């Protein structure tokens, strides 16, 4: 590879830092994909892959994705929870890849809650 110049150091830093950002402290947005057996059966895996692809394409380094178990409301799976720092969590129901893309672009990046898909607001209200 070509030898680095001083400005190259900065570029490497920025690129790799965003890849490794999730090893640092709190992020702006946390998306939880509920991956119980029922969720997976209903297509949670595809939702998760879509989300990952969106993050990658948009270079959004402030979004972390976690998975969790079944929420107990199997008929509405796949479900995801979007928590934006300082706002109340929003739970979406019956998510599919298309809805996921919409939620990502509109809600996570631009802050508009996608009301038609919302199952509940707040963490424990299901």
């Amino acid at each position: 590879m070509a030898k680095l110049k001083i400005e190259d150091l900065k570029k490497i830093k920025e690129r790799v830092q965003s890849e490794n950002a999730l090893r640092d402290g709190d992020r702006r947005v946390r998306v939880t994909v509920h991956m119980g057996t029922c969720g997976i059966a209903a297509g949670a895996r595809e939702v998760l892959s879509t989300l990952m692809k969106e993050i990658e394409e948009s270079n959004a380094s402030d979004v972390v994705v976690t998975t969790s178990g079944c929420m107990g409301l199997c008929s509405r799976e796949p479900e995801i929870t979007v928590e934006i720092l300082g706002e109340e969590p929003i739970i979406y129901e019956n998510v599919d890849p298309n809805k996921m893309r919409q939620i990502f672009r509109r809600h996570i990046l631009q802050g508009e809650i996608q009301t038609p898909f919302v199952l509940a607001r707040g963490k424990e209200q299901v």
Partner: protein
Amino acid sequence: MKVFRSHILVCGGTGCHATGSIEVKQALAVELAKHKLTDEIRVVETGCNGFCALGPIMVVYPEGIMYVEVKKDDIPELVEEHFLKGRPVERLFYREADTEKPIPAIKEIPFFSHQKLWVLRNKGLIDPEVIEEYIARDGYAGLAKALAEMTPEQIIQEMLDSGLRGRGGAGFPTGLKWKFASQSKSDVKYVLCNADEGDPGAFMDRSILEADPHAVLEGMTIAAKAIGSNKGYIYCRAEYPLALRRLDIAISQAKEYGLLGENILDTGFDFDIEIYQGAGAFVCGEETALMTSIEGKRGMPRPRPPFPAVAGLWKKPSILNNVETFANVGQVINKGSEWFSSVGTEKSKGTKVFALTGDVNNVGLVEVPMGTPLGTIVYDIGGGISGGKKFKAAQLGGPSGGMIPVQHLNAPVDFETVAQLGAIMGSGGMIVMNEDMCPVDMARFFMDFCQDESCGKCVPCREGTKRMLEILTDICEGRGREGDIELLEEMASIIKDSALCGLGQTAPNPVLSTIRYFRDEYEAHIKEKRCPAGVCSALFKSPCQNACPVGMDVPSYLALVKAGRLDDAYKILLRTNPFPGVCGRVCDHQCQSKCRRATSDEAIAIKFVKRFITDNGLKPAIQAVPVTRKEKIAVVGAGPAGLTAARDLAMRGYKVTVYEELPEPGGMMRYGIPPYRLPRNVLEGEINDIKALGVDIVCNTRVGRDISFGEINESYDYIYLAPGAHKSMPLGIEGESSKGVFGGVEFLRDFNLNEGDWIGGNKTLGSRVAVIGGGNSAIDAARVAVRLGAEVTILYRRAREDMPAAEEEIIAAEQEGVKIEYFVAPLSIGTEEGKVRAITCQRMKPGDFDSSGRRRPVPIEGSEFTLSVDSVISAIGQKPDVTFVPEETGISINRWACFDLAEGRKSETTNPKFYAGGDAVTGPWTVIGAIKAGHDAAGEIDDSIRAENGEPPWSPPEEEAIDIPFEIDEELEEQPQEKMPELDPAQRIVGFAEVELGYSIEQAIKEATRCLRCDAEI
């Protein structure tokens, strides 16, 4: 960019490799592929995470959950649960050593949360084999700044301003070292990195090299620019293959990226680094020896001057810094000297990395600000001493350093303080040692090391260390002589002054330091041929016997129980202990704390087996010993000390009379310990045997009241004073003299004197009782109060682990419904018409450390609260009542109201006619301690008499030969102690029946069979 939703950072340090992290990583790859998670979850192998004792370790981000001791078989479950279903696996969480509380988040684990990671900022966070991960965390930013924006003078000034001192041990200012080298004129100069980390117990440099090798390369390159060098060497020991490999990779990546080699970062600066593999010689850590070694010769030091800054490697100007020093440099330059010097103490700036090892719960790599108290490192980060043992000392600086003992736990760890305490900072090995450490053996160990590693060039080191080792070995093996300590001190000072290099000059440090703090243990080895810590095995048969104050022959009686020969076992017991039945019930069993079986599973229940023998064996018949000596001896106090002395003296043919104030003999065994722990008939039986020898016991007779001191003085030739410690210490608070406030021992005595009145209700504590204190008397008082029907709360001002009471007693009290409040101290006692109504208390919190290594309780302002109670029992300690001894006797009494002993004597007072022992000399202690005092007194009295008469010393009559069977099982099966059958708590509290029921024969034999026979000669 490639985004993963999760990163799994698997520790790939040497420690975790050894416990199987490579297999874990492979299993992870397989399992993630199986679930098609490879694109979502990235596995990264990092350098040493630092928490080596719990390896293999992995940390999962973004959650920051740490899993410990992960085995490859755990991986399928882990992937399925955590990565697929999002349910973290609790059984693999870190658990706090004492509470077993699981803590999932790495940030919250005390081991990590008290640290300040500067040098280790990347440990466990980056893949050390990927240069870009280092760059992403500001790596090489300092280098860029140094090369593009700074002159060599500015770099050196920044280093000087930062106050960074060499982390290799001596603490020489790094900037100054560089300045000297930069001022030397030469076309060739060298930058050398010392990675020959040879101190046993130190692995800081290894971890840094494994976790963050680029930090070292960056620091070296900055140094090169500062002094004008184009060539560097890293001298790394061959014992660190992984560090060598990671360095190798790092160097080639740095070259590839233009961060090493020619025209670095396009600034026109050239610098190259070569690794030089050490071949295993400790002395090569010394700077001139290291240079000689790189030159391909025997690594011997050379005299200075010339200093390396003038003529170092190949006679060219050179600087040598260690790994940790270089790892600091990049950040000092990048963030500035002010940032660096904001942390630390006046003369020691920044942080220090320690390899915390030895007897602490959390072994691993620790980085703290300079000046952090030793206690914080040992207790808050290290999690305290493992196995419930006591802290004895921390060893710093390895073979060149010394010990910091328990009384200095508050000492800030920085260069100056550590040196004042007789240790050195060293490169950062901190070995924590518990009560089982023998300082003489430790000094011998380090001297053996230095002697072995001495290069032989200069005489003081070559011959001096050898001679010192011989003396230390002699002391450890029982051949120590008077004057050895002084000889060691003299040799130490000569070697320090005259050896050529640091190895020799510092070699005597461990000896001097151990003599400074543990001189008494040296003396015990030399004068008594005894190793108090139970390490120097040439001095004893078995560690249990060595730990017993009276040296009971534990392995023999255990072997006899195993063979079913209880009667013989009983005879063995009585050879050293007149109260085996008592001790089988109430002894503090120091023997068990040294039992080697505990290293496999659990100590032998020696006390319980002893009790089994006395319950079931045939007690040998006692015959009166005829009086053959003309000297008459009086004993004051019929407790364990007095009765033991009386028995021993009677057996030697003396007429002994014991005076006792209370109606029955036994002292604290009768009036302190309640009958549910020690049934009266057991004690009575053993005292009757002493009477049967011909000892007269005169009860209800207080010397100074019922019989005058003068009369005793006139009627007897020698007098042994063993009145015990029967007076409670005052609380010193308001309301203490009101009705319903009892001293702990006074209450127990009253109860044991007037059991009928208390049980019948003529005397009462009322329904709610507060007991103050944490010793055995407090627990005894509380358990008696429960049996009298009261609701009992113990108030103790420190933490549970600080309670002096026996653990099994505390548990028993809790089972019986005693409530214990920790960190509470009484402030005042509220009264109504002169009678106790309430007690007002204050909550406490742990503060700094006292000289016993316990945390001092500090009041919490505004935390006062009041309990309504009917009685308060104050059991915060006892002292003797020695007012019966007239001043004109010349018997000296100290400020603790105890008898002083004559210089160098075990029981003779300052008046040679009077001897003293037991609690009245030591302050409140144990039954077995008092028995030991009684033996010592009888021996000294008899020796004095015979010496005065010009007779030869007493020789004990021939003992009946008892053949001790000897069978050892080759293979050891793990098997814990036999449980002692006990009364159910509900049955216990309705009366005073004995709680412990005793082993069955099967249990006793099984327990005795667990003995490892450490007494065996192999």
